[in-house]
C-alpha cells in the first residue's frame, strides 16, 4: 500500500504575495491542491479569510513557528478530532469592540459547536507596533510580551486548553493600509501577527493563531475583492477559531513517536512556495530531505530570493495550475517531462 501523498503549501505572510498576500485569497488554491494530495499541510496565512473560511477535510492548519520546527525534524504533527480552545483578548480593545469579539466566540460555540472553553483579557495592553522593513516586508513587535505569556499560561494550566486564539488591538491607521485595501502592496499587520503567534507556539508548543482587532472602517468604494473578506464582519476571528478547532497538536518529544497517523518530516513528498520567497528556515530544512521543492514564479512577492541563489534545488513552474500538475505526476510516479513535447 502506498503511504499518503503529503505536501506543504507555503505562502509566507507579509511579503506582498500576489496570491495569498491578502484576506485568505489562497483558499481557492488550497482547495484545488488538496484534491491531488492525500494530506495538505498549510498555515493560517493561507486558510484565514477573516469571516470566510473553507473546511478542507484533508488539510492541516499549522502555525508558522510550528511548521519550521516540523520541517527541521524536531517536532511532529498529531491530527486531532477537536481542540479545547482558549481565547486571549488584548486589554487595549475598547468595550464595544470587546463585546463584538465575545459575541463571535458565542457564535462559534452556538452555530459551529466549537469547544471554546474560556476567554481571558491580558493584564496590560499588548502594545502592538507595526512597521515595514527596508526590503518592503511587514514586521512588528509587541511592547508587553510577558502579559501575553501570563494570559496564555493561565489558560493552559487552569483551563487545560489545547489551542489558543489571540486577538491583539492593532493601530487604526497603518502605512500601506490603503494600498492593501485596493489589492496592492503588503498586508501591514501580517508581520506583527506572526510574532504574536510564534511567541506562543515557541513557549507553549500548542496550536495558536492571531486575529487583529480593528475599528470598523467606513465602506470603501474601490475595495479590492482580495481584501473584501476582512470588511464583511466586525471581527477576524471566525476563520481562526475554525482552523484551531482541528489544528494538529505538536509532538515535541521522541518518546511520543509511535502513534499511527502522526506525521513527521520524513513523510513530506513535496513543498510548494512562491519562487521569490525561498529564504525561509522551512525551505532550507526541506532542501536537505527527499522532498520535491516546487517554486511558482507566477506568485510574485516583494522579495526576490530564488531557490537557486541559495543552492536549493527546485522544480520551477510558472503557475499554481502547473504546480498542481507536477504534484499529480509526482504522486503517480510519473516524470512530468514525459507529458511535454518540444
Amino acid at each position, binding site marked *: 500500500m502506498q503511504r499518503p501523498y503529503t505536501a506543504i503549501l507555503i505562502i*509566507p505572510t507579509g511579503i506582498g504575495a500576489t496570491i495569498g498576500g491578502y484576506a485568505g485569497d489562497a483558499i481557492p488554491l488550497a482547495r484545488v491542491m488538496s484534491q491531488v494530495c492525500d494530506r495538505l499541510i498549510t498555515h493560517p496565512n493561507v486558510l484565514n479569510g477573516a469571516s470566510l473560511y473553507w473546511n478542507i477535510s484533508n488539510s492541516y492548519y499549522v502555525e*508558522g*513557528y510550528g511548521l519550521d520546527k516540523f520541517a527541521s525534524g524536531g517536532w511532529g504533527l498529531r491530527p486531532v478530532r477537536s481542540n479545547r480552545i482558549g481565547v486571549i483578548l488584548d486589554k487595549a480593545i475598547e468595550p464595544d469592540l470587546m463585546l463584538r469579539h465575545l459575541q463571535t466566540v458565542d457564535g462559534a460555540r452556538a452555530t459551529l459547536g466549537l469547544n471554546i472553553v474560556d476567554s481571558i483579557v491580558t493584564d496590560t495592553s499588548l502594545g502592538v507596533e507595526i*512597521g515595514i*522593513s*527596508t*526590503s518592503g*516586508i511587514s*514586521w*512588528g*513587535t*509587541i511592547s508587553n*510580551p*510577558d502579559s501575553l*505569556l501570563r494570559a496564555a499560561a493561565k489558560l493552559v494550566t487552569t483551563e487545560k486548553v489545547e489551542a489558543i486564539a489571540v486577538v491583539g488591538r492593532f493601530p487604526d491607521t497603518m502605512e500601506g493600509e490603503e494600498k492593501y485595501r485596493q489589492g496592492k502592496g503588503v498586508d501591514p499587520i501580517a*508581520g506583527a501577527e*506572526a*510574532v504574536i503567534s*510564534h*511567541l506562543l507556539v*515557541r513557549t507553549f508548543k500548542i496550536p495558536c493563531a492571531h486575529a487583529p482587532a480593528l475599528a470598523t472602517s467606513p465602506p470603501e468604494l474601490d475595495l479590492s475583492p482580495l481584501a473584501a473578506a476582512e470588511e464583511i464582519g466586525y471581527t477576524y476571528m471566525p476563520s481562526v477559531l475554525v482552523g484551531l478547532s482541528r489544528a494538529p497538536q505538536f509532538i515535541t518529544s521522541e518518546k511520543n513517536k509511535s502513534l499511527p497517523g502522526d506525521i513527521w518530516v520524513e513523510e513530506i513528498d513535496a513543498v510548494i512556495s512562491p519562487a521569490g*520567497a*525561498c*529564504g*525561509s*528556515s522551512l*525551505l*532550507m*530544512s526541506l*532542501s*536537505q530531505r527527499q522532498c520535491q521543492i516546487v517554486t511558482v514564479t507566477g506568485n510574485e512577492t516583494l*522579495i*526576490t*530570493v530564488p531557490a537557486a*541563489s*541559495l*543552492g*536549493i534545488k527546485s522544480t520551477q513552474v510558472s503557475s499554481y495550475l502547473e504546480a498542481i500538475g507536477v504534484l499529480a505526476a509526482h504522486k503517480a510516479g510519473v516524470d512530468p517531462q514525459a507529458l511535454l513535447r518540444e
Partner: protein
Amino acid sequence: MTTHFITAEIDLQETPAELQQTIEAEIKKQGQPLRWAVTSVDTTREKVTVEAVVTR
C-alpha cells in the same frame, strides 16, 4: 522579555544546510529567534541579508 526587529548580513555558504546553521548562529548572538528570512541575496558580494524578530 522584549521583542526586537534586527537585520544581519551573512556570507553565502556552500550549501543551504550550512547557510541555515550560520544564520541561526548569527541571530542567536542577538536574541532568541521568533521569525527570520533571507530577504535579499547579493551574488556578486556573496552575501545575504536576513531580517528577523528576536526576544531578549
